[in-house]
């Protein structure tokens, strides 16, 4: 866990995506000047490690962190899989005032994954592939997470490799199989509507997983939708300035 910014600043909790870590927000945090920013490595990820967990369990853990810090009325920002966690957190903890969904479609209905992803969902095979995944494969996945033409710098490649090493293999079936079913049964746009809290959705126009095609679905449930045309699946890394400005603007929206 890491906390940045002034103690009296409006609280923001940043929730990273599948296979990531709190370092994916390293570029964003300095731009959220004045905010109290809380970041955690999710269960099965980064320095937290431990067994894999689904979004609900992740949300309970994050709620525990917020409780221990005595934080409420937070803005929960979830990137990719972190969006599921942000929504679960908002639904169950009562500590969230606003939700920001970054680069996450309501479900997998028209998502594109890197080739070979189904292998990762097989028991044992997935674990072995994960353990012995060559660096180039991890780099290829990292490249899929940004817009075409965006150059994944050495810092980010190194981070991806470390995050991959720290990742618990049990996360693969949770994200690739169970999550598909969950989202199909209860897509995020439905959850946003039922939640009833102010929600902003930030989409990358060149997102290679989801595109920005879900803009209309989110708008239909009353969310504020912002598309960053040149960003891919990781606007927090690719266009941190725009994302930070949007979050700060959203926080003062009435």
């Amino acid at each position, binding site marked *: 866990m890491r906390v940045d910014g002034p103690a009296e600043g409006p609280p923001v909790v940043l929730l990273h995506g599948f296979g990531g870590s709190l370092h994916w927000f390293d*570029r964003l945090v300095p731009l959220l000047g004045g905010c109290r920013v809380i970041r955690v490595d999710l269960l099965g990820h980064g320095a937290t490690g431990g067994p894999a967990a689904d979004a609900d369990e992740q949300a309970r853990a994050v709620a525990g962190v917020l409780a221990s810090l005595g934080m409420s009325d937070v803005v929960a920002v979830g990137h990719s899989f972190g969006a599921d966690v942000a929504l679960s957190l908002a639904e169950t903890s009562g500590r969230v005032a606003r939700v920001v969904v970054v680069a996450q479609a309501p479900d997998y209905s028209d998502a594109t994954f890197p080739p070979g992803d189904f292998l990762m969902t097989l028991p044992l095979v997935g674990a072995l592939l994960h353990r012995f995944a060559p660096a180039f494969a991890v780099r290829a996945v990292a490249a899929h997470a940004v817009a*075409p*033409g965006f*150059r994944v*710098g050495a*810092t980010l490649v190194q981070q991806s490799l470390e995050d991959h090493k720290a990742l618990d293999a049990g996360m693969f079936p949770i994200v690739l199989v169970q999550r598909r079913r969950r989202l199909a049964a209860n897509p995020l746009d439905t959850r946003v509507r039922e939640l009833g809290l102010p929600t902003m959705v930030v989409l990358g126009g060149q997102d290679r997983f989801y595109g920005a095609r879900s803009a209309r679905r989110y708008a239909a449930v009353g969310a504020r939708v912002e598309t960053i*045309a040149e960003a891919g699946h990781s606007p927090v890394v690719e*266009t*941190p300035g725009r994302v930070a*400005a949007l979050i700060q603007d959203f926080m003062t929206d009435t």
Partner: protein
Amino acid sequence: MNPDVIVVGSGLAGLVATHELAKAGKRVLVLDQENRNNLGGQAFWSLGGLFLVDSPEQRRLGIKDSYELAMQDWMGSAAFDREREDHWPRRWAQAYVEWAAGGKRQYLHDLGLRVLPMVGWAERGDGKADGHGNSVPRFHLTWGTGPEVVRVFLEPVLGAEKRGLVEFGFRHRVDELIVEDGAVVGVRGAVLEPCDDLERGKASSRETVGEFEHRAAAVVVASGGVGHNHDLIRKYWPTERLGKCPETLISGVPAHVDGRMLLISETAGANVVNRDRMWNYTEGIVNWDPIWPNHAIRILAGPSSLWFDAAGRRLPAPNYPSFDTNGTLKAILADGHDYSWLVLTQTIIEKEFALSGSEQNPDITSKDVKLALKSRLAKGAPGPVEAFKQHGVDFVVARTLRELVDGMNKIARGPKIDHDDLERQIVARDRELGNKYGKDLQLAAVEHARRYLGDRITRVAKPHRILDPAHGPLIAVRLNILTRKTLGGLETNLDSQVVRADGSVLPGLYAAGEVAGFGGGGVHGYNALEGTFLGGCIFSGRAAGLALARDLR
């Protein structure tokens, strides 16, 4: 024509905005006070340097660059310190570095632009990790220099002209922005005497032969800075920060770079910010073969030449060639004179002198590989440099230091140089060469630069004694202050919409390129990192074009 958008200025920023608008099917009227030969404006004359971060070219040379390092350098150089006036510039700086580390190279590559494999290292900084300057080489030279940067946007725009989407009004000087109900709805101005045959860059007649008025849903001002308007430069010169404004200024840009649209836009309600920030070079020499009045060329010198003020005192560290433009300017002006001296050897001039500008680099401008290799790697200085050495009024060439000093004193505008004092300083520096280490920081910087392959091969001569006749003859160059860039300008938001003094958007008015301080009204803050001016024109012109294509019905 009934245009959707009027673009004022057919320089790079105007062409980029027009290109993006035409791509989206909008009708554009482009007005410019010069003739068709001047399409591309100042960018045509430029060297075509582009600021890219963590590029494949850098990686191939083993340069480890990153968004984080580039942000550190940009913010250290910009040194933004004004709450209101730097609000949008800060936002633009953030967005621009993201683009330079992200999509910029691909965007230009898709348009057909290519860069050279050797990456240049400009503005090496003030010696502080968090201060001014580039931590690593980032200056990517366009294969084809400035004209090629113009071409990749001009060709599609001329295609759109054929299809009837774009129309040009040359010799149309805008004198007024029409404001109705608080919004800009068009332009009025004078038609200037035609001069179809006048060559590019030559000063043109100001005789008017008619008037015009055009209306559109939006006006994009992309008219450039104040670079040739010495009156405005003197008016806004930051004396308290840099010292007294030079009496002799020579012009690094053509006469049409007059800054008129700044005042015209201000009259219409636009906010102009950071006027006191400008970017003028200290290495100006008078062009012996001028195109525009008072035509100055900038020497791009490697780090080895010794730099003295007008009185012949060596400039304090780290004011070495290509390190810290504004810092050196201040050091030169500090003793009350407005010029300085470079003293070097034939060996240094051959390897370390380049001249800025497309016309001074015919090999790269014409994309001639053979000529480029021959002129850059063969013995002797490149042709254009040698021509200046022979014909330039600022050059002194001599076999002995005494002859050199006599020559310098003939062209000095200020105090006479004392031979013995100059000799003492040069001998002192030469003595420091005995070991691979020493206390002369400039020599350390030279050794340091040679650890970078690109510098070692093309840019930095092996250290040697200045007074060693084997490396002669000796050369002295009188360097004048050369006017170039306006770093402040019209305040704009990230969509290039012009902002009023109260912070609200002025409907209908957009600004891009140098007139908008390359974005926001001063994306560079106090100092530029180089290779950022063309890029700023492209980024802000593109922002205006994309925003209008999105918002216009």
